[in-house]
């Protein structure tokens, strides 16, 4: 065939796989950018939640400072949950249409196809998170992070979005209908509500507290909050911030790796 092998086969295989991954990422991005409905929903809903929490419930939350300082990091995480739905649906469409058969009959490796969707998810989230962040700043969110704090927050959020996107990809592969695939967002979005995203964990009923403290979203939110708005009540600082960040990273990497592997295996097996 047409492969020009000037390097060792193993290297050539890796080069092909990376090229395929780039091709598939380009494809998913293109398709996502043409799905305006999904983009608008994924942006508008978190913006509305932001406004609601700030202006409607905000007054009821007994806090010393603006509630928006406290809630914005959690709402940014919610964006990832909304984005997950469209990622899962896009994967499901590949699986239920004829596309999966063509892709699987090509020399392309399965993970490159799913990687394409994950890359598109990252790009989509960059846009939706950017908009939500912009609105938050417009209505009074005042982050006080330095360059390192910003880098850390963006890096961790990227890792979180990628992990959620792999979860979404897995749901997309195993789901039999677009609706079932979209249901992933309920799972993903449920978590921020039972975390420290909107209220400090110690205000939750005792039976929820244990779960809220030890689920993956809480350390991510606490880290982002600690990095962006360290002055907020309840924000973790100093040494504690470092260890919380490590827990957050471990969760994201772990979830991402497990679901990436599961999605790839399911992609190869499903028929």
């Amino acid at each position, binding site marked *: *065939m*047409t*492969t*020009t092998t000037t390097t060792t086969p193993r290297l050539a295989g890796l080069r*092909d796989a990376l*090229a*395929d991954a780039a*091709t*598939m990422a*380009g*494809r998913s991005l*293109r*398709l996502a950018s*043409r*799905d305006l*409905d999904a983009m608008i929903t994924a942006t508008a809903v978190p913006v509305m939640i932001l406004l609601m929490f700030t202006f409607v419930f905000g007054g009821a939350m007994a806090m010393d400072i603006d509630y928006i300082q406290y809630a914005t990091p959690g709402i940014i995480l919610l964006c990832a949950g909304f984005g997950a739905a469209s990622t899962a649906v896009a994967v499901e*469409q590949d699986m239920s*249409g*004829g*596309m999966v*058969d*063509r*892709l*699987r*009959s*090509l*020399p*392309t490796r399965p993970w490159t196809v799913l990687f394409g969707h994950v890359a598109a998810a990252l790009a989509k989230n960059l846009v939706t998170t950017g908009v939500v962040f912009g609105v938050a700043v417009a209505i009074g969110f005042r982050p006080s992070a330095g360059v390192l704090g910003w880098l850390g927050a963006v890096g961790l959020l990227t890792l979180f979005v990628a992990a959620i996107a792999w979860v979404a990809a897995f749901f997309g592969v195993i789901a039999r209908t*677009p609706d079932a695939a979209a249901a992933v967002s309920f799972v993903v979005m449920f978590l921020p509500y039972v975390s420290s995203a909107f209220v400090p964990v110690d205000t939750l009923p005792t039976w929820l507290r244990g779960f809220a403290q030890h689920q993956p979203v809480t350390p991510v939110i606490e880290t982002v909050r600690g990095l962006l708005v360290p002055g907020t009540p309840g924000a973790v600082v100093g040494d504690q911030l470092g260890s919380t960040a490590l827990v957050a990273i471990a969760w994201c990497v772990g979830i991402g790796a497990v679901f990436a592997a599961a999605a790839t295996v399911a992609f190869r097996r499903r*028929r």
Partner: protein
Amino acid sequence: MTDAVVVAEGLHKSYGDTPVLRGVGLTLHRGEVLALLGPNGAGKTTTVKILSTLLPLDGGSATVAGYDVVRDAAQVRRHISLTGQQVALDLKATGLENLTMIAKLSRVPRRQVKARVAELLDGVGLADVAGRRVATYSGGMRRRLDLAAGLIARPRVLFLDEPTTGLDPRSRRDLWELVRDVVAGGTSLFLTTQYLEEADELADRIALIDHGVVAAQGTADELKRRVGQARVELDLADAADALRIRTAFPDIADTASDTSAASPTVALATDGSLAHVRELIAGVESTGVVPASWRLREPTLDDVFLTLTGHAAHAPDAPEPGTTITQEKAA
């Protein structure tokens, strides 16, 4: 056989408790077109999926381009391409974007991608609409684009699963032309179809599949020869007449056609010689049956199917919902 590019032996496959393939054996030779012909649910798609490494088999073995479809699946995938029963296109992307993606994934050298894609768009007559989204294409245009996608890699073996189902006669002929060009270029073609005419037109050899078993394999002529040279076809008034004819010619009357219909047709096999036809006509007259009309005709693949499987091939003209072109989900 050294020039065989697809060899399948005793393929078995079940979905749950339902056996779908029950010992399918097939051979496709280099440069040849093999049509796997069978009615809905016969097991055509299942066979294609096994040969193109998409489905594991429960029993038997198969090699494609010299590689085992199970053990060397990755190698097989380098030498085949598949255009499945369902169109595999991104509706929100343009024709050009679709083909460019497949060209890259098919390992067409980067610098040749553009030229190769342009060549194929031209070949399938879609150059003018290459910049339009596939969602705006007609069913026939989508089929042609899908076929083009299957040809990009210049595969050694091309699998086409019911490429013309749901197309109008004109588009079907256009597609046949394209397929002939491809085969002339040296590609071996494994085609499935439920249209006897299509198998007759395109295939060098035909394998009749029915309920997961290959009932017969051979050239169209060989298969036709197995059911007699020609037939005398009688259009009769009712079932009673049909029964009388069948009783009078127990060996040569077809017994599978539906005689409960309002005006049944019964065919009698003949060598087509004047003497034999005259003898048959005399025999019919002596039964007292008066056919509304009659004709002498060449055997068709329908006859082959009827004789070899005991029932009609039955190719409905209307495509089954969901089996042909995927509808665009909300734009």
